[in-house]
């Protein structure tokens, strides 16, 4: 099973060892062999996710999704691609042409770059950077500039309003996103994503995996990370900046054809990247949940967890109503940020309680940390909604 697990690594080494490559192009070839499969895999993930999302949303809403194009509508992405590519590319007359053209590119390039540090399997990350997590967040922050460029260059009121809302939302939710990952960095002690996954590969008591989501602080941090990730990628219930019923398409209003497809692609790829990061940081990356399941290759585990999280995102999109802008902001600054700060404190308590030596210490520290997290959540939740909503009065027809 080791062979199946490392099949891609050995394939790459075999290709590089072929004798007819000149030495000069070996580094470029090595980079290409790492990059091209990532682009192919996540490109096809994008196509599959669009159709799965539409069919999933349809089923949630008690209707069929698209079912015309292929068997059960599964060839719909091809129809979508043909439509996007053959649509006329309209640029408004008074738009800023250079910025209007550059905005989708500035969005897509950093998002593609973020895939290079994610570990997809054992020894299977494209680059192993010492500061990989910081690299990821730096590129996530640069995509906000693209949103602004798109909104402003369209010279459209709705586009500008949508862009400002989107940027305000993305900047605000970066704070809970980064703070919840700081807890993981504190415990593991490194910013390298490969090392973070390696730290989660053991099993305590023989069958409970060492994943961070199974610790109280890690569970809280995972929830905050998922909420902040939903907001960062402008996905429901935080999709006010691009909601069709609110603001037409927000900052994407003046884009059509291939550029719109690029924005769409960039948004979904951002979702995939953040989901991959959530799997890496909290769900143990490519490690198996139970020790006897190690025969399944590591990359299959990564994509299984990844697919589960994407399905959860689609589920949340179908279920939860949209948040208004002020509700969104209040939720971030008044609820998530204090809770993530308290989570930092809980993580520190966990780390220092790990040095206790009396018997039953692991259970005690689990209980203490869980108590702090639960008390903080309940306290903040109740405290913030104390006198906000009056008691409901039911009136019946007499």
């Amino acid at each position, binding site marked *: 099973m080791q062979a199946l697990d490392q099949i891609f690594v050995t394939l790459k080494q075999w290709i590089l060892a072929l004798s007819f490559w000149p030495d000069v192009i070996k580094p470029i070839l090595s980079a290409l062999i790492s990059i091209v499969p990532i682009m192919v895999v996540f490109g096809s993930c994008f196509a599959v996710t669009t159709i799965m999302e539409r069919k999933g949303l349809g089923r949630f809403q008690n209707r069929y999704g698209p079912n015309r194009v292929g068997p059960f509508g599964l060839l719909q992405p091809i129809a979508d691609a043909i439509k996007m590519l053959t649509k006329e590319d309209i640029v408004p007359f008074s738009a800023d042409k250079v*910025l209007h053209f550059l905005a989708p590119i500035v969005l897509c390039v950093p998002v593609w770059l973020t895939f290079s540090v994610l570990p997809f399997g054992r020894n299977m990350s494209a680059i192993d*950077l*010492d*500061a990989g997590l*910081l*690299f990821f*967040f*730096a*590129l*996530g*922050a*640069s995509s*906000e*500039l693209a949103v*602004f*460029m798109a909104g*402003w260059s369209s010279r459209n009121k709705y586009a500008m309003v949508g862009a*400002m809302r989107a*940027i305000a939302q993305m*900047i605000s939710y*970066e704070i809970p996103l980064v703070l919840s990952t700081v807890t993981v960095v504190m415990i593991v*002690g*490194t*910013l*390298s994503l490969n090392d973070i996954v390696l730290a989660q590969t053991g099993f305590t008591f023989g069958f409970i995996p060492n994943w961070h989501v199974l610790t109280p602080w890690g569970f809280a941090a995972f929830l905050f990370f998922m909420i902040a990730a939903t907001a960062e990628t402008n996905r429901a219930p935080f999709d006010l900046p691009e909601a069709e019923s609110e603001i037409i398409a927000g900052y994407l209003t003046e884009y059509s054809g291939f550029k719109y497809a690029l924005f769409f692609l960039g948004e979904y790829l951002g979702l995939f990247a953040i989901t991959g990061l959530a799997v890496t940081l909290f769900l143990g990356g490519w490690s198996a949940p139970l020790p006897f399941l190690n025969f399944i290759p590591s990359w299959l585990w990564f994509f299984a967890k990844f697919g589960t999280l994407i399905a959860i995102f689609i589920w949340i999109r179908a279920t939860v109503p949209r948040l208004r802008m002020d509700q969104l902001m209040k939720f971030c600054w008044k609820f998530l940020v204090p809770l993530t700060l308290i989570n930092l404190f809980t993580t520190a308590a966990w780390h220092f309680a790990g040095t206790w030596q009396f018997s039953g210490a692991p259970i005690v520290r689990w209980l203490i940390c869980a108590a702090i997290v639960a008390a903080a959540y309940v306290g903040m939740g109740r405290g913030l909604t104390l006198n906000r909503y009056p008691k409901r009065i039911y009136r019946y027809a007499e």
Partner: protein
Amino acid sequence: MPSNGPSLITFFVFAAITLVSAIGAMSLRNMVHCGLSLAMSFAGLAALYLQLNAEFVGFAQILVYVGAVAILIVFTILLTKNADVHLPRASRGWLSGLAIAFAVCAAIAVPILKSPSLNRLAPAAPSHSVQRIGEQLMTTYVLPLEAIALLLTAALLGGVVIAMRDDPVDKLKPKADLQPQRRRGAEAAMESTSQRLGG
């Protein structure tokens, strides 16, 4: 001992990008273009830091400067309605400003180019890691770290307080002042109609 230092071609490419976008940031007509050109020069500088094996600083530069400071500058340009204004070239003393800047550049660059000790090539890449940076931050540089924490808190609070609106004070003014104007307007309207009708 010359070893794997930054290569010359990539240095010139990144330096050209950074310099051109910096000159653009200072001389473009449209202010939003200035702000975005500044973001590009920040990105070029981050590339130079990465070339110099300072990865943590390079990524922090992108995260802080491109991801926050550039967006802040662009937001301020929009909030102060400078977005579609075409700026005049420069103020009256622009020639002397350029002359001073040129003099400063010459004063720094000429001694550097003439000095023999600065003409050296790079030694081997320093052995540092993010762990070492963290260790140093917590041991040798803990005092600047705490000072920065204080400074950032003060800047956060100060920024919010300075940019806050003064409206709550205005809301306390009584609304009765508006009534006389409306009555006067109504009276004036009645007079004009009576004049037209009555002759």
